[in-house]
C-alpha cells in the first residue's frame, strides 16, 4: 500500500516514553529510571492488525498498557480518533475507552473468580450505563454465542471453564462495547496448541465482522505473522524494525529481527536450519547500553554502533523502516 492510499490512522503514537522510577537505597529515593518504552512512533489503521514482537522486558506490554491508558506515559502522545489520550482524564478518557479495549494474557488472573461469567461480560455495559438489566442480559447472551460459548455459560463461574474458554470470556468482555481497537497482550501464549488455533480463528472472524483494529502483542513470531498486517519488532523499549508482515519474514533488515526469525524452531525436521545464535542476554532497561541498544549482542557491531544511536530510516520495501546504521 502506498502511503497515500493508507486511510487516516485510527491510532497514532508519537514519541511515546514510559519511564518507571527505580527506588534504591535506604531512603528508597528514585535515583534511576527504568526506560521501559523509550521514544516509540507507531500508527494503526482502521481494521488493521499491528503485531508487536519482542523478548521479555522489551517494553511491548508496557506500550500496550499505555495505549489503553492503564499507564500514564511519561512523555509523548497517543492520538486516538484525533484526540490525545496521553494526558486525558475523567469523562473524556472514559468516553474514549469505550472504543478501546484490552485482552489479557492470563485468562485466570484477568477474570474475577467471584463473579459469574454473565456479570463479567456485562460489566463494561454497566460501567458505561448502556441499556437496562433486561437488555444487558440479552446482549450478554448474544456476545457469549458470538464467541462460541454455551448458552448457559452466563450463570456459571470462570473456574468451570478451560483455558481456551476463559480466553473466549475475556474476548466477549472486550467486544461488549463494540470497540474500534483492541490491545491483545499475548492472548494465546498460555493456551495449548490445539486451543490456540481455535482462539486465533475467533479473533480473525471478529475482526472481519466488526472491522476491529488489533494491536497484537506476542513473543511468538509465527503466531504474530499469521494475524498481523504489519509487524513492529521491539528491543529495549524501542522499535528496531517495522514493515508489513510478509516483508519482516522474507526480507528482515535488522540483525536482531534476523536472529529472532532464525531462532524460532521450525516444526519440520527436513528444514533444520543454521541458526544465528545471539550471545548474551538482553541488557537491563535501567542501564541501557550507549549507542545502538543492540550493539553488545550484534554480530555486525562496529565502533560507530557503540556511540551513535541509529534512528529509524526507510529501507527496501514500501513502509519498511529499520534502526541500523548499515545496510546488511
Amino acid at each position: 500500500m502506498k502511503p497515500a492510499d493508507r486511510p487516516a490512522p485510527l491510532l497514532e503514537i508519537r514519541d511515546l516514553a514510559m519511564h518507571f522510577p527505580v527506588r534504591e537505597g535506604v531512603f528508597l529515593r528514585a535515583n534511576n529510571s527504568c526506560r521501559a518504552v523509550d521514544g516509540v512512533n507507531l500508527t494503526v489503521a482502521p481494521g488493521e492488525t499491528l503485531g508487536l514482537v519482542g523478548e521479555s522486558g522489551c517494553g511491548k506490554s508496557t506500550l500496550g498498557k499505555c495505549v489503553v491508558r492503564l499507564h500514564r506515559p511519561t512523555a509523548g502522545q497517543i492520538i486516538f480518533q484525533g484526540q490525545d489520550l496521553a494526558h486525558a482524564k475523567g469523562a473524556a478518557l472514559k468516553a474514549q475507552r469505550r472504543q478501546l479495549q484490552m485482552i489479557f494474557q492470563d485468562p485466570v488472573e484477568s477474570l474475577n473468580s467471584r463473579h459469574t461469567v454473565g456479570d463479567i461480560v456485562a460489566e463494561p455495559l454497566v460501567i458505561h450505563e448502556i441499556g437496562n438489566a433486561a437488555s444487558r442480559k440479552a446482549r450478554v447472551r448474544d456476545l457469549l454465542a458470538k464467541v462460541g460459548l454455551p448458552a448457559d455459560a452466563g450463570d456459571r463461574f470462570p473456574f468451570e471453564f478451560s483455558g481456551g474458554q476463559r480466553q473466549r470470556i475475556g474476548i466477549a468482555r472486550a467486544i461488549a462495547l463494540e470497540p474500534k481497537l483492541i490491545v491483545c497482550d499475548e492472548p494465546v501464549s498460555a493456551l495449548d496448541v490445539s486451543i490456540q488455533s481455535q482462539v486465533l480463528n475467533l479473533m480473525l472472524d471478529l475482526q472481519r465482522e466488526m472491522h476491529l483494529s488489533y494491536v497484537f502483542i506476542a513473543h511468538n513470531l509465527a503466531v504474530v505473522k499469521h494475524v498481523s498486517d504489519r509487524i513492529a519488532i521491539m528491543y529495549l523499549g524501542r522499535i528496531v524494525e517495522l514493515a508489513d508482515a510478509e516483508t519482516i519474514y522474507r526480507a528482515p533488515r535488522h540483525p536482531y529481527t534476523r536472529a529472532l526469525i532464525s531462532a524460532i524452531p521450525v516444526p519440520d525436521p527436513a528444514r533444520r536450519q543454521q541458526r544465528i545464535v545471539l550471545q548474551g542476554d538482553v541488557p537491563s532497561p535501567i542501564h541501557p547500553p550507549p549507542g545502538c541498544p543492540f550493539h553488545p549482542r550484534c554480530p555486525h557491531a562496529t565502533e560507530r554502533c557503540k556511540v551513535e544511536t541509529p534512528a529509524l530510516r526507510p529501507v527496501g520495501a514500501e513502509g519498511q523502516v529499520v534502526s541500523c546504521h548499515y545496510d546488511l
Partner: protein
Amino acid sequence: MPSADAPLSAIDPVLEVRDLVTSFDTDSGRLKAVDGVGFSVRRGRTLGIVGESGCGKSVTAFSIMQLLPRPMGHIDGGQVLFEGRDLTQLPPEEMLKIRGNRIGMIFQEPMTALNPLHTIGRQLSEVFLLHKTTDRRAALAMSVEILAKVGIPSPEVRVGEYPHQLSGGMRQRVVIAMALACKPSVVIADEPTTALDVTIQAQILELMQALQDEMGMAIILITHDLGVIAEMCDDVVVMYAGRVAEVGPVDRIFAAPSHPYTRGLLASIPRLERPRKTRLKVIEGLVPPLNQMPAGCRFQNRCPFRTDICAQPPPADFVTPDHQVACHRWRELPAFQP
C-alpha cells in the same frame, strides 16, 4: 502402547518404559494420569515426548525418576528398565544412587529448581559430594569445571554467587550443569526452554546438542513445542490423555503422521510460510477430564474420522517397523497435508 515386541527396543535401548500406569488419589477417586505408556530410548539419541497440558508427559518423567508426589502418586503397573534393573522395584536408597548420577534431570523453571539460599557452588558441589567425592575442595573444583563446560563466563566467580544474581538463561545453564555433573547416560529434560525467550532458547538447545555430541548421553526431551521436537529429536512419542497416540522417528512422524491427533496438531500450528489471516485448521472440542474418559480411543470425541469401532480400544499397529500408531482407522485416512 506395549513395546515388549517393538523393534525400537531391539536397537540398543538405554532406558525402556513398558506399560507404565501412574495414578493419583484425588477428591474424585484414583485417576490414571498415565495409562499404559511404553517407549524406549536409544543410547546417545534424543527422544521427544510431545503433548498438551495434562497429557501425562511430565508424570511419565517423574515416574521414571521415582519423584512422584507422595502419598498421592502411585505407579500401579509397568516397568522402567534401566541398566538391567526395573526402577519401579528399587528401594529408595538404591534409587538415590541412580538419580542425579546415572539419570539426570533438567527442570522447566530454573528459578524454582535452584535453592535461592545457597550459592551456585554449594548446590553443584552437593551433587559431587553425593556421588563422586568426599572432599569439599575437589567438589568445588569439579563444579567450576562443569560450569565452564556449560558456557558460563568466569565460573570461578559464579560459584560464589546466588541464583538471583544470574539471568534466566544462565540459571538454566546451571541446572544443566547439575544434571550432567556425573556424566549420566540419560538426561530427562522437562520443558527446558519453555520459560526462556526465543534467542535464549536457541542458546540452550545448541548447548544441549553440543554436550550430547561430546558426552554421548541420551536425552528424553519433554515439550509441547513441535518446533523444538523437529529441531532436536531423533524419535518422538506423541501422547494424548495419558496414552501414546503415535511413536516413531521424527522424520516419519512429521512427514507421514498416522494418528488423527498428530495430524491435527501439525495442521493447527501457525507457520511463518503459511498465508496470513487465513483460518487455521483446528482440533474441535476439548480433552475429556480424566474421570470422564470414554471407553476405547480417548481422542474419539474430537476426531474427524470417528466411527463406531472407535469405542473399542485401539490397536497398536506398526505403520513401518519403527513407527507405531494407536488408531483403528489409520490405513483409511487420506494423505496428510500440513
